[in-house]
C-alpha cells in the first residue's frame, strides 16, 4: 500500500515547490551577469563574493527570525530597534568591564527580553502584532538613545572585534556565524515538530487551536526567536562597526520583511521558506555591492530595490495562478 501511495505522490505538489525559488535565482543570475559585464575586474572575484556575504550577514540573521514570525502569521517591526538597544546595552562601560563574553551575553539577553515582551503582548494580551511591534520599535530605539545619550559607544575589547576582523580561509568569522544561524533556522523550521507547528499556527490559527495545539505559547516563542536573532545580529554589527550605536539597524525591519516576501513567504502566514528569504537577502546585498563598485548614488539603489520587489512579486503571483 505504502509503495502505491508513494508512486502516485509527486506530480501535483512537488512541481510547484521546486519552482518557487526560480524567479529569485534568475534575478540573482541576472545581477551576476550584469556585475561581470559592468565591472569585470572587481565584481567576479572571490574577495567580492566574501564582501557580498559579509554585507548579507546581519540582515540575513534578522531575516531568519522574521521568516519564523511571518510564517507563524505575525510580523515584527521592532527588529532594527532591538538591534540598536542590544548593541547599546552590550557596549556600556559597565557591560564592557565583563569582557567580550559579558557583552555578547548582554546583547543576547536584551534581544530575548524584547522578543518576550512582544510575544507576551501579542499572544497573551491579544494585541495586533503590527501595533505591538510598532510600539516596541519606537520604545526600544528611544531607550537605546536614552542609555547612550545618543553617543556612539566605542568597543574597547579586542577579542570582541575578532568576530568581524579575524578570517578563516579568507572569510570573516561573522559570515560563518551567519551561515550557522541559517542552517539552524532551516533545521528548526523543516525538521522539528516546532517548525511544523509554526506552519500550522500561521496557516489556520483556529484549526490549530481546535486540534489541541497551544497556539498562544507557540506565538510567544516565535517572537522570542526573532528577538534572539536580533541579539545575535547586534553582536555582529557592533563588532563590525567597532561601536555600539542607537542608530544601528535603522530600517532593517523593512529590508528583512522585503527579503522574506520576495523569498516567497506569504504575509498572511502558513507558507514560506528560509532558503527563499536568504535568496531575497542575497539579491538585495548583491545590488548594494554592485552599486558600491559602480560608484552609483544611494537613491538609484533604492529605486532598483523597489523595482525588483515589484517584479519578483508579479512573477510569483503569475506562477501561482498558472500552477
Amino acid at each position, binding site marked *: 500500500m505504502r509503495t502505491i*501511495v508513494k508512486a502516485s505522490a509527486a506530480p*501535483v505538489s*512537488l512541481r510547484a515547490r521546486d519552482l518557487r525559488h526560480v524567479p529569485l535565482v534568475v534575478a540573482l543570475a541576472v545581477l551576476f551577469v550584469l556585475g561581470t559585464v559592468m565591472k569585470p575586474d572587481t565584481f567576479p572575484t572571490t574577495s567580492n563574493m566574501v564582501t557580498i556575504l559579509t554585507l548579507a550577514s546581519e540582515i540575513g540573521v534578522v531575516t531568519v527570525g522574521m521568516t519564523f514570525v511571518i510564517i507563524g502569521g505575525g510580523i515584527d517591526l521592532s527588529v532594527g530597534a532591538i538591534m540598536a538597544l542590544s548593541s547599546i546595552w552590550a557596549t556600556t562601560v559597565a557591560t564592557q568591564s565583563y569582557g567580550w563574553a559579558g557583552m555578547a551575553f548582554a546583547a543576547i539577553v536584551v534581544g530575548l527580553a524584547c522578543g518576550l515582551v512582544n510575544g507576551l503582548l501579542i499572544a497573551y494580551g491579544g494585541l495586533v502584532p503590527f501595533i505591538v511591534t510598532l510600539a516596541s520599535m519606537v520604545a526600544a530605539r528611544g531607550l537605546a538613545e536614552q542609555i547612550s545619550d545618543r553617543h556612539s559607544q566605542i568597543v574597547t575589547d579586542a577579542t570582541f572585534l575578532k568576530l568581524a576582523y579575524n578570517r578563516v580561509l579568507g572569510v570573516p568569522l561573522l559570515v560563518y556565524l551567519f551561515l550557522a544561524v541559517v542552517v539552524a533556522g532551516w533545521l528548526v523550521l523543516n525538521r*522539528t515538530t516546532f517548525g511544523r507547528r509554526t506552519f500550522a499556527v500561521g496557516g489556520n490559527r483556529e484549526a490549530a487551536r481546535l486540534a489541541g495545539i497551544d497556539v498562544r505559547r507557540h506565538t510567544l516563542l516565535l517572537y522570542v526567536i526573532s528577538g534572539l536573532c536580533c541579539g545575535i545580529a547586534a553582536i555582529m554589527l557592533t563588532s563590525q562597526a567597532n561601536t555600539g550605536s542607537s542608530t544601528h539597524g535603522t530600517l532593517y525591519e523593512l529590508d528583512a520583511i522585503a527579503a522574506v516576501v520576495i523569498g516567497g513567504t506569504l504575509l498572511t502566514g502558513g507558507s514560506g521558506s528560509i532558503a527563499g528569504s536568504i535568496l531575497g537577502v542575497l539579491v538585495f546585498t548583491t545590488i548594494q555591492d554592485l552599486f558600491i563598485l559602480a560608484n552609483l548614488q544611494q537613491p538609484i539603489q533604492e529605486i532598483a530595490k523597489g523595482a525588483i520587489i515589484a517584479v519578483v512579486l508579479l512573477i510569483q503571483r503569475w506562477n501561482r495562478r498558472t500552477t
Partner: protein
Amino acid sequence: MRTSSPLLTMRGIVKTFPGVRALDGVDLEVLPGEVHCLLGQNGAGKSTLIKVLSGAHRPDEGEIVLAGEPVRFPNPTAATRHGIATIYQELDLVDGLSVAENIFLGHEPGRREARHRTEQLLARLGHAEISPPTLVGRLSPAAKQVVSIARALSYDARLIVMDEPSAALAHDEVANLFRIIGELTASGVSVVFITHRLDEIRQIGDRITVLKDGRTVARGLPADTATTKIVPLMTGRSVDHVFPPRRGTPGKAVLRVDGLALAGHFEPISFEVRAGEIVGLAGLVGSGRSEILETIYGARRRTAGRVLVDDVRPARGGTRAAVAAGMGLAPEERKSQGLLMLESVARNISLASLGRYSRYGWHDRRREHAEAAEQISALDLRPPDPHRPIRTLSGGNQQKAILGRWLLRGCRVLLLDEPTRGVDVGARSEIYGQIRGLAEEGVAVLLVSSEIPEVLGLADRVLVVRDGRVIAEHDAAELDEHRVLDMIMEGSVL
C-alpha cells in the same frame, strides 16, 4: 387583496450546481402587500431560491415575472433596480460607517440629503430615535436590522426578502420587527419571509409556500393551515443514502456533561454519552446546539457545570486539555475552523498528533507520513495521495481527512458538528459508515446536524434542543421526522 394580480411570479425555476440539482422546478407567487412565508427543511432550496430572486444566482431554466413583466437579473444590482431587496441572515452592514452612510452605500445622494432621507426612512419604520450619524457598529442587532430594512426601502423596494430575520433577536425585538413588517405591507410592500417557526408564521404570515427537494410541494396555503398538514409536506424527503445498522449495546458512560451552561447561549444541561453510542443533538441554527459542542470541547468558556471524560475532568487549558483528555472535534466550518488549506492531506491528518512524532524535538517525518497514509487508505480517501494539497479535494474527502485526524490521534469522545455539510451523496454513506465504525470501536460520538433524517438515521439517542434548552430526549427508534420537526419548530413536546 386576494383578487389583485400577483406582484411576483416565479415559474419552473431550475438551478443546478456541479453534482447537485438545488432547484428542480420551483414555483412561487407573491401578491402585493402580503407576507409570504417560505418553509422547508435545510437543503430544500430556500437559500438558492432567494439567491436567484436577488440576482446572486442565475437560473438555468424558468421565468420570473415582476408586476406583469418578464424580467432577468444578471446581477444583484439589476434585482435592486427592479425593487427587490434582500436582507440576509448575516447582515451586510459596514460597522465602521454611520447609519446614513450604510443606508445610502453605493447610491450616495450627498451628505445633507442622505441625512434628511435617513431620518424620514427611520421615522417611517418607527425608529426615529436611531440617529443618522451613529456608527452602525454601536447598534444592537435589532437596530441593525432596522437599518437594513431602511436600506431596502431607500431603493424604493416593492419586495423585501428576509432570511430568518428573527433568529438573532430577543423576544420584544421580534415583536417590533413584526410591527414594522405590518406597516410595510399596509403601504403595499410585499415581504417574503423565511423562518422555521410556525408560531411566527401564524402571527404575521398571509400565505405559505413549502419547498422540498428543490420543488414546490404546496403553494399559497393560508397561514393558519394546521401544523399536522404542514409538517408532512416538509418531511419524507427522498433519501439516497443508507444508514449503517446499529449493533450491540453501548458500554459505560465515557462523556458526562453535568449542569453545563454558557450564559446567553444555553441553560444548564446534563447528559451522558456511552462507549459505542452515537447521540444526536437536533435543533435549528441558533438553538444553541453548536455552542453546546464547543463548550464541551473547551473552545468556549463555560459559565457553569463540568465535563468528565472517563470520570476524569480535563485539566484547565481549553481545547488543548480537551484533546489531551481524549476528545476530538470536527468543527462546523470545515475550511475556516478545520483545515490547513495550504498544506497536504497528510499534514492535515497528522495535525492533532504532532507531538507523537517528536523525538527530542526532531520530527519523524517518515513515520508521520506512513501513519497518515494508513488513515488515507483505511478511510478510502480519494485520490489516495498524501502529498496532494487538501484544497484540491472534494468536501467529502476533506471531511474524511478530519475524521482521519482523530482516528490517528485515537480519541475517546468524538464531537461532530454538521459532518456532512457540503458533502455529496455518495461520500455521505461512507462517512456514516465510518462514524458508526468508530462507535463500534468504543468511541462515544456526539453529533450535531441540521438534517433531521441524518440525526435519526445515525444516532442511537436524540436530544432535541430549542432556544438553548434540551426539551426532549428519546431513543432514535422512538422518534420520527414529524415529531422532531414539530418539537424544534413549535417547542411542543408531544
